[in-house]
């Protein structure tokens, strides 16, 4: 097989898994292969997919962000409190949407500043902000906030004709935008180069500190957007939104082609990772697997993801090595015949 084909398959192994898993369940799992269940999977994947994308971007710059699952509740919570309670007058829901995203971006900026500029370890730093925000949101929003205005629920709840959820369209739109950013912009290049080799990127004249901060800001923004979708879907803002989701976001990103060594991965793969996670729990639910067991099996999926990450690197190294040896031998015999 051609080297480039091999590497292409290796980098996009996630879509093979997605398709394989889908076909397998289409045959063996009852009521899996229906239009309704398929859109349902997409709808349920929309929220997770935003976290996976945010996590993926941060992993690309060789960091990680545990706090996104708390941002998911913190950003809409704070935005809604500002709009409905903290000010002497109420602000319209459209403003609440913008505020939600701004709060998410600011949380990302905070994380990014302390990781990239101050040099704190991303694991510890984002773990602390994860706990801080969860504590604050439990304190500030002891009971769920509801009802929410229609505008605020639109993204999470509305459907267009054909029973297609708006959330799914938004998911595809966001992924398309980020795929473009990664593949076709100078910013995307800088981001990937920073993760691939920070010192080399720095010497090549890239402001790597700013790139890492930008990655955290995007992760915060996407987490806030995920919060918007969650709140819209359940029609309320509850303090427990997002709990335990961050670990699966790692699984999605790594299954989707991100490498913990940084500099690898693209949104198209992360989408595959998110969809696989969504299909996985959907299929297990349909088969009536007990909910705690589903949780355990998701843990297994994370394990598999990291194993895949290592395996992928090993296979990649071996494929490249084989290629090198082959080329060396061909030039050696070439030289011999010349002599």
């Amino acid at each position, binding site marked *: 097989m051609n*080297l*480039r084909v091999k590497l292409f398959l290796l980098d996009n192994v996630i879509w093979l898994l997605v398709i394989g898993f889908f076909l397998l369940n289409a045959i063996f799992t009852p009521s899996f292969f229906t239009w309704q269940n398929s859109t349902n999977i997409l709808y349920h994947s929309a929220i997770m997919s935003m976290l996976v994308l945010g996590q993926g971007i941060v992993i690309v710059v060789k960091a990680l962000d545990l706090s996104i699952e708390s941002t998911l509740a913190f950003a809409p919570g704070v935005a809604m409190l500002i709009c409905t309670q903290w000010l002497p007058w109420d602000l319209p829901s459209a403003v609440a949407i913008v505020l939600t995203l701004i709060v998410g971006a600011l949380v990302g900026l905070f994380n990014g500043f302390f990781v990239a500029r101050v040099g704190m370890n991303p694991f510890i730093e984002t773990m602390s902000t994860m706990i801080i925000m969860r504590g604050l949101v439990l304190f500030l929003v002891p009971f769920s906030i509801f009802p929410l205005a229609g505008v605020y629920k639109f993204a999470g709840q509305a459907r267009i004709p054909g029973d297609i959820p708006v959330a799914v369209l938004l998911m595809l739109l966001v992924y398309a935008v980020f795929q473009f950013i990664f593949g076709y912009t*100078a910013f995307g290049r800088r981001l990937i180069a920073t993760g691939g080799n920070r010192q080399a*990127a720095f*010497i090549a004249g890239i402001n790597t500190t700013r790139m890492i901060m930008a990655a955290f800001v995007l992760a915060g923004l996407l987490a806030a957007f995920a919060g918007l979708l969650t709140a819209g879907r359940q029609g309320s803002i509850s303090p427990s939104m997002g709990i335990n989701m961050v670990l699966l976001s790692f699984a999605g990103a790594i299954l989707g082609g991100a490498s913990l060594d940084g500099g690898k991965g693209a949104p198209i793969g992360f989408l595959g990772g998110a969809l696989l996670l969504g299909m996985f729990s959907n299929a297990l639910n349909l088969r009536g697997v007990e909910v705690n067991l589903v949780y355990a099996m998701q843990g297994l999926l994370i394990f598999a993801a990291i194993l895949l990450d290592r395996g992928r690197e090993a296979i990649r190294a071996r494929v*490249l090595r084989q290629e090198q040896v082959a080329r060396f031998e061909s030039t050696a015999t070439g030289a011999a015949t010349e002599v």
Partner: protein
Amino acid sequence: MASTVAETQGGHAEQAKSTPALVLKDVSKFFPGTIALRNANVEVRRGEVHGIIGKNGAGKSTLVSIIAGLYEATSGTIFINGREIPKLTRAVAQRERVSIVPQDPQVVADFSVAENLFLGHEVTRGRVVDWRGIHRQARATLDRVGLPLDTHIKASDLSVSEQQLVLVVKACYVDAAEIIIFDEASASLTHSDEELLHEIVAERCAAGCTILYISHRVDELLKVCDRVTVLLGGESRETVPCAELDEVSLATLIVGEAFATTQYEAEQKPNDEIVLDVSGLTSAGRYTDVSLQVHRGEVLGIAGLRGSGRTEVLKGIAGIERADSGTVTLAGGEPGLFGHPASALKAGLAYLPEDREHEGLVSTSSVTVNCLLSSLKQVSRFGVMKGRTEKARVREVVRLLDIKVSDISQEVSGLSGGNKQKVIVGRIHEARPSVYLLDEPTRGVDVGSRQAILKIIREKVAAEAGVVMTSPGLDDLLAVCDRIAIMGHGRMVDIVERSAFDETRLYVAVQSASAAAVRTGQDKRGMEE
């Protein structure tokens, strides 16, 4: 076949005097792509101080690493005390009482001086570590040498020079080695610590130990050694008693016959326009008062040993590690200092890092991405990459520098060392700077690529820009430079014009610069006071 040692006890003592302590017979070492050592023959007599000297890449470190059991020889036989050692591993070497003091001090940073000294020799009472005993013994050992270090102090709190001395003391007195190898141990020592090292060597030698002394410095070897073996291009040349040598004759042996290296001379004389003017650049503890000027079309070489400050100066100029004081002026620019490589690049100054893998390449990305990393602005509009322009420019670079790739979207990690280096040269070239700082551009590339890169530097890079390049050896610099500046201990000692190039004299100058710079620096300070 090798057991020439007599079996009886009396015979043993008799034999011990006459059998050489160490014999290497036709020892070779191949690394993938290079031959580090080719049929080297060395005979070290018991109780002598035996020097090993040679240019960079002559095989000095490989040779001693084989003796110390760190590398396994590809072929050849090794005799220690007259017995053939079929498989010389580190453990075997230790059993044969061979000890090595490596080039860079490798202490356990978090351990005390005493713990470092007795690492691998647990001093215990019963099953418990005898801390008092360790410190008492350490104290006694250090006093014996005359090294006034507190045994409780952590190794990380010592200077590099002191760390090195601790390792010297460990090898000489704690490990009780009979054959002691010093692999450029004096390179990281201060002047007074170096004196102490020489005293220790003399004392150990008198006590019957055999010493292998590797150094870059001609004057030091002549002072310390009884005999020296000269290595050249991985082969052992001759072993000569030091009494028959002086600095110039030894340097001539090291440099070898003036074999014709390809010279790449400038087609036209560098013009008068100064593209880079560095004045009084200083960074505390790294380099002092470095001034240099580069003209358009000129290649200026900086020669200096490891630790001379050549890399640090280039990084200071490029804004990667900001200097404390001094100014850098580019043609048509204001004098100042760059605080970030991005601003240096914008002003027209690009740096090629010596450490290709860690500082040069994004190895998980493609040739295209790496080639254009420093010129993203030129190949994008409103932040969006111009796909066709991008590909065209990369193809042009690949053609210009003759980079061997199967496809421009290929990952750079699959390229050979020389081609990787060309990709970085290409990246810098694409930024179209007026000044290139090339830090060891031929490091770790094979002979063919080396020639190609030197040719590129002379003919393509220097054509419309000014170049500063460094090299650990002189060969590259002699081949392409218009002038060579000599650095030692962070100071610019001398600048030699091409018309006055002479490898032997330059070699001596570079070696002695490291020692001389300190002394003249001290003299100057004295005069100012």
